[in-house]
């Protein structure tokens, strides 16, 4: 893959050629093609969808639905199994509220100790209301302890919800193994695919999960848009989360009946330009070639781990097969915040903090980490700049 050609397709890199952006686990840059698609909506056929009979509205509706079709194709699903959401956090809140209400005391939901807060708190709140138990697959040596997982997932387990790749330490979880354990006792499976969506060719049929969530802004799409995938029968059984216009069949003063999925879950005017942008992002990625993207990411992740290991302590696995290009590290006793600030002065953007994974940080006995994460437009030169910046940190703190 020609990185220079890719970077040229992002105006932000033309505007800021000196910036090395290595915070892709937080959010990715948006290519001009996506911005253009959104802009064309606003300047040529701006209208609400599913409602108007005039041309603008018809085109807006078609483009919005075409984006849904593209997403379905991208992940191996049917279009009616794709629900547009505001992002992963929104999707997980929908599931915890919608699935949680059918659980009772004695039932349990299994999560993991490495989950992002978005896949912990909604379940905590639901468990307070409906009385079910929350269990957490422990993290040992930066990996999930699958022996314990086997014990935790028992005949009272109703839902297993877990992340495919940890946003904090980059661990790649044994997704198929976990889904198999859940299927043995007919538990519903929810996969947080936020960090994995550009790392693999996702085929939800092969994965055979019940629900899966990801966000547009982590795959070169705009912010404020995401996807909840659900197997047809699961979405049919799930109650709506947000009630209002567009998600109904009939309404009287006495009550309402729901539309079919996915409309059932898309009440109110959605993020129309966001959906259109996400469709354009998928075209952009498939245009580059998912195989090439996968290869590039894997190669660069390996280089990142290799080069960082020489100069810092990596907080995570160093075994290539079990980790992604999301790398947490510590520079001696320097606080992550100082590391990030000094790197920022050198135009290298990384993240410092607990990465919305406080339970994991507590388990690891630390308050936070410095985290570098690669995107499709990063190169070996970017990694080298990161290493140079770390050299500066060591110089200042006399390590």
């Amino acid at each position: 893959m020609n990185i220079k050609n890719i970077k040229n397709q992002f105006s932000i890199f033309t505007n800021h050629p000196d910036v090395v952006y290595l915070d892709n686990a937080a959010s990715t840059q948006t290519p001009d093609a996506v911005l253009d698609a959104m802009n064309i909506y606003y300047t040529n056929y701006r209208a609400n969808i599913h409602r108007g009979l005039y041309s603008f509205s018809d085109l807006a509706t078609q483009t919005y639905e075409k984006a849904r079709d593209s997403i379905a194709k991208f992940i191996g699903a049917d279009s009616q199994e794709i629900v547009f959401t505001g992002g992963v956090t929104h999707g997980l809140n929908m599931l915890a509220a919608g699935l949680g209400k059918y659980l009772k005391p004695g039932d349990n939901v299994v999560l993991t100790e490495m989950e992002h807060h978005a896949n912990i708190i909604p379940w905590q709140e639901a468990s307070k209301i409906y009385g079910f138990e929350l269990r957490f697959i422990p993290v040992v040596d930066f990996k999930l302890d699958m022996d314990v997982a086997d014990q935790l997932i028992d005949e009272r387990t109703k839902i297993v919800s877990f992340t495919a790749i940890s946003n904090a330490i980059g661990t790649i979880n044994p997704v198929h193994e976990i889904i198999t354990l859940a299927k043995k006792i007919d538990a519903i499976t929810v996969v947080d695919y936020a960090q994995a969506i550009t790392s693999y060719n996702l085929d939800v049929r092969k994965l055979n999960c019940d629900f899966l969530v990801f966000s547009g802004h982590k795959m070169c799409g705009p912010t404020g848009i995401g996807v909840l995938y659900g197997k047809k029968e699961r979405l049919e059984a799930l109650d709506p989360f947000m009630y209002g216009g567009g998600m109904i069949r009939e309404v009287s003063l006495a009550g309402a009946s729901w539309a079919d999925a996915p409309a059932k879950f898309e009440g109110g005017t959605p993020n129309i330009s966001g959906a259109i942008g996400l469709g354009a992002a998928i075209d952009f990625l498939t245009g580059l070639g998912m195989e090439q993207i996968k290869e590039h990411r894997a190669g660069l992740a390996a280089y990142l781990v290799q080069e960082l290991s020489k100069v810092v302590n990596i907080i995570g696995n160093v075994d290539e097969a079990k980790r992604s290009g999301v790398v947490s590290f510590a520079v001696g006793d320097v606080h992550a915040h100082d590391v990030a600030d000094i790197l920022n002065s050198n135009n290298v953007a990384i993240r410092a903090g607990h990465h919305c994974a406080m339970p994991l940080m507590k388990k690891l006995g630390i308050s936070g980490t410095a985290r570098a994460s690669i995107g499709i437009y990063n190169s070996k030169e970017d990694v080298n700049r990161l290493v140079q910046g770390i050299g500066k940190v060591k110089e200042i703190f006399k390590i």
Partner: protein
Amino acid sequence: MNAAEFDNELDMVYKEMILDLYRNPLNKKSLSDFDFMHREFNPTCGDDIQIAIKFNEHGTVADVGHMGTGCAISQAGVSLLTDAIKNKSKEQIKQMSKDDVLELLQIPISHTRLKCALLGWSVLQSLT
């Protein structure tokens, strides 16, 4: 900014004093006997500071200690602040402004580091 300008700016912030206070903070201890104890933290970066104060019969600070973890600027800030409030009364402590605290550090504090520099001060805002 060019490389030389970067270096100058970093050197201005990470002066000897700041690094020294990070590695050897002043008043870093817990108090078993205290009249005031409060904790604040900056969830975006993981700075976490707790300050405990014991007042004497004249109403001035007899002993003060801070615990927790944080970046160089927050540790330097709370070190200098806890030193500065020794022998002060509650009223005098409450009169200390954000600017007073920033002045203690004697370094330029950028917008992104303000919360770090003022974390200790924000703990003391709970003093009644």
